[in-house]
């Protein structure tokens, strides 16, 4: 962490074509919440009551904090991968599908080797989840690197394929024979992520927290990160400097997909303990917003992922107390990003005029 002081500060108004760098995230959140309040009022509910219930639901009890923490883990893992990808200007919108594939491969691994001791099982699960997500992310990477296919569309469409694939798996081949529901058998005991003593948090939290400085290190302290940033900032200059752009596209998608896959594994092994159809409530998409709100900075992603997890938990409570649908959080998330974009644009404009 002491390396942070020597990182070059990459904060300055940048041309619109570059990846999002500095808007004003805090201001954006406040504005979005204000606008949200207007919407709440418009449908006849008291914004004060709504937000109160939200805050209470998100921060009011240790249970709520734990819940938020659990939800934040996959968000953080995925958004760290997306931070790398977006910084390389590779728009990986397929994190949701990569999560599903990682979850599936991890389940396959656990069910195939039920008698492994935890010392082997846990790393094996991690590898399996990572591999599942990484391979799924490899497809759009190859298509983009060698055929120039738009990775936004390909990774996006593959989401649906992955979700249907898992749906099929838990309905037929992997179905738990003892249950009516489409879900896999319960994972064997060694495949359950151990819980941190005194809390209900699983060790996935440690993994995610460790990855934050690791990703930051990769981005700013390694030649690989340097090259990724050049590719994202100016792909022509990257080629000119001899950087193998297709190779880097593949590297970044493998890491990004792998992290999403690992998140999938964590959901299976740490939360649900089996593979189900709705293993992810849209983490892959929310993580996109988290990465953007975090200014494509791993530490920002840490803060943003906890914030969004709290938002969702709070919204659940809000729905129970004042009856507002949780879909409001999606609206607020979208508004946050839009305000960040707008604030960056205004900052750019002001600097241009002042000189």
């Amino acid at each position, binding site marked *: 962490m002491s390396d942070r002081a*020597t990182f*070059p500060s*990459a904060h*300055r108004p*940048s*041309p619109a074509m*570059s990846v999002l*760098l500095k808007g004003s995230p805090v201001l954006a959140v406040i504005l979005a919440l204000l606008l949200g309040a207007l919407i709440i009022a418009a449908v006849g509910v008291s914004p004060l009551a709504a937000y109160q219930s939200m805050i209470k639901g998100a921060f009011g009890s240790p249970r709520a904090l734990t819940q938020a923490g659990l939800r934040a883990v996959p968000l953080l893992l995925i958004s760290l991968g997306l931070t790398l990808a977006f910084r390389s200007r590779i728009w990986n919108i397929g994190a949701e599908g990569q999560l599903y594939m990682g979850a599936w491969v991890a389940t396959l691994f656990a069910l195939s080797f039920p008698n492994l001791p935890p010392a082997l099982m846990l790393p094996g699960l991690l590898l399996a989840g990572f591999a599942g997500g990484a391979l799924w992310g490899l497809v759009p990477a190859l298509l983009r690197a060698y055929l120039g296919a738009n990775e936004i569309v390909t990774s996006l469409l593959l989401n649906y394929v992955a979700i249907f694939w898992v749906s099929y798996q838990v309905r037929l081949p992997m179905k738990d024979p003892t249950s009516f529901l489409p879900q896999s058998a319960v994972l064997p005991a060694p495949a359950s992520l151990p819980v941190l003593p005194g809390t209900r948090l699983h060790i996935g939290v440690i993994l995610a927290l460790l990855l934050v400085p690791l990703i930051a290190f990769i981005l*700013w*302290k*390694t*030649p690989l*990160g*340097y*090259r990724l*940033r*050049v590719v994202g*900032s*100016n792909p*022509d*200059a990257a*080629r*000119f*400097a*001899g*950087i*193998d752009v297709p190779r880097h596209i593949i590297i970044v998608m493998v890491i990004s997909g792998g992290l999403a896959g690992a998140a999938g594994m964590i959901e299976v092994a740490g939360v649900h303990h089996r593979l189900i159809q709705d293993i992810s409530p849209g983490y892959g998409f929310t993580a996109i917003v988290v990465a953007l709100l975090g200014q494509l900075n791993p530490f920002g992603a840490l803060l943003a992922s906890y914030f969004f997890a709290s938002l969702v938990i709070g919204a659940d409570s809000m729905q129970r107390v004042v009856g507002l649908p949780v879909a409001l959080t999606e609206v607020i998330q979208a508004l946050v990003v839009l305000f960040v974009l707008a604030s960056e644009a205004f900052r750019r404009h002001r600097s*241009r*005029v*002042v*000189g």
Partner: protein
Amino acid sequence: MRGITKRFPGVLANDHVDFVLEAGEIHALLGENGAGKTTLMNILYGLYQPDEGEIYVNGRPAAIRSPHDAIQLGIGMVHQHFQLVPTFTVAENIVLGLPSRREPFLESRRQVHQQIAEVSRAYGLAVDPSCLVWQLSVGEQQRVEILKALYRGATVLILDEPTAVLTPQECERLFEILLALVQGGKSVIFISHKLDEVMAISHRVTVLRDGRVVGTARTQDITKQELARMMVGREMRPIEKPPASPAGPVIALQDIWAHDDRGLPALRSVSLEVRAGEILGIAGVDGNGQAELEEVLTGLRRPHRGRYLLAGQDVTHASARELFEAGLAHIPADRNRFGMVADMTLAENSILGLEGKPPFTRFGMLRYREMEQHCSHLIREYDIRAPGPAAFAGTLSGGNAQKLILAREISRRPKALVAAQPTRGLDIGATEYVRRKLLEQRERGCGVLLISTELEEILALSDRIAVIYEGQIVGMVDPACVDIEQLGLMMAGAIKEACELPPRPPADRPTAPGSAGHER
């Protein structure tokens, strides 16, 4: 135009400029790069709004808030970078934005072609209206631009550096067209930084320097030297070039064939050599394969036939990175796009290409202190005006950015240097600096390949000149004895022999067996 003042962040582009265009004259606007000529004309054409000052057209005050207004007043402009839609036909480009009589539908093609033909004939601007613009030569595209302005009823025509992309013969044609226009009652403003042209074609000339008018004169009453002094503020220093003593070849291309992005042949059987300690200039009109040649030499484009040897090593299939490692340096033609990363700091830019190597990386980690030291060193050595290594590369001016790129490439002590359009867009000071550095490399024993569209530069710096036309080397000439006209004809593909170099004595021939023609 009276008292025109225009400020941009950090720079005063026009400082209380007065400019008068009389009817039926060709008025040259002279000044070096960055003097404010284009800005002034962009104001006249409505692309910019002046911060102070007024414009009068035919005696009446005019408010020109957009090109639309300018066109209404009969002002047309031909820009330095053509404003034509490449995928449209000539006719479509000309009628773009104009109301049609068959609204909302476009005019009938026949009608439009007929009208275009009329205007073409009147001023000698022959062009096929149904041709797609990307298929036209540069000279033809320029004619389309002129037609476009005339079609909209322009009586005043502004041309911004029109000869930058033309062969000497095409320049002649352009001058004929301009004279025809003036005889037909139009008035022309001609922006240039080339003294010879200004002397040749204009009736009056206004000199701008650093945003201010230095003076206006009738061309026949003033000398080239006086103009030069007004333009630059001092006498231009001639280039001193010590005699060459070249050694063995560092770059050798043997029968290279390559395609362009569209899959069409761009380089055809190109064979050339650059020896250590000499500058080989590639002369040619932009678009005859120079870009592809630059890319093949630097590993950004694979030739599908032929061999490329760098210091004796076969690098035909090498990547850009491998060529870099083998000692090739590259100053790109488009420095903003290829040479620098605007969003990163100068320190980070200064090690582009070297990021994986010690001393900048040790134990897999980047070392910022070494990067900053290296960058500071470069800034000092190469006199780069910048706040410091932590400044963002995008804030540098054109000249300083080029110096940084030069510094970065040259400080690696390369064996070979490919410099493409190295002084494009630079002011006098930076231009002299870059040329001096190229000569220094030559002294040092580096083999320099210079690609430039500025003929004077090629003639002044090169020890030998290769002329490229439609992807082929049509001749090798000795700058000491060739003249501009012959060079121009070769560049236009008209003749294949001008002042040929004497054959080299046998001792200098490449000794590698099986070279030149055995590999197919």
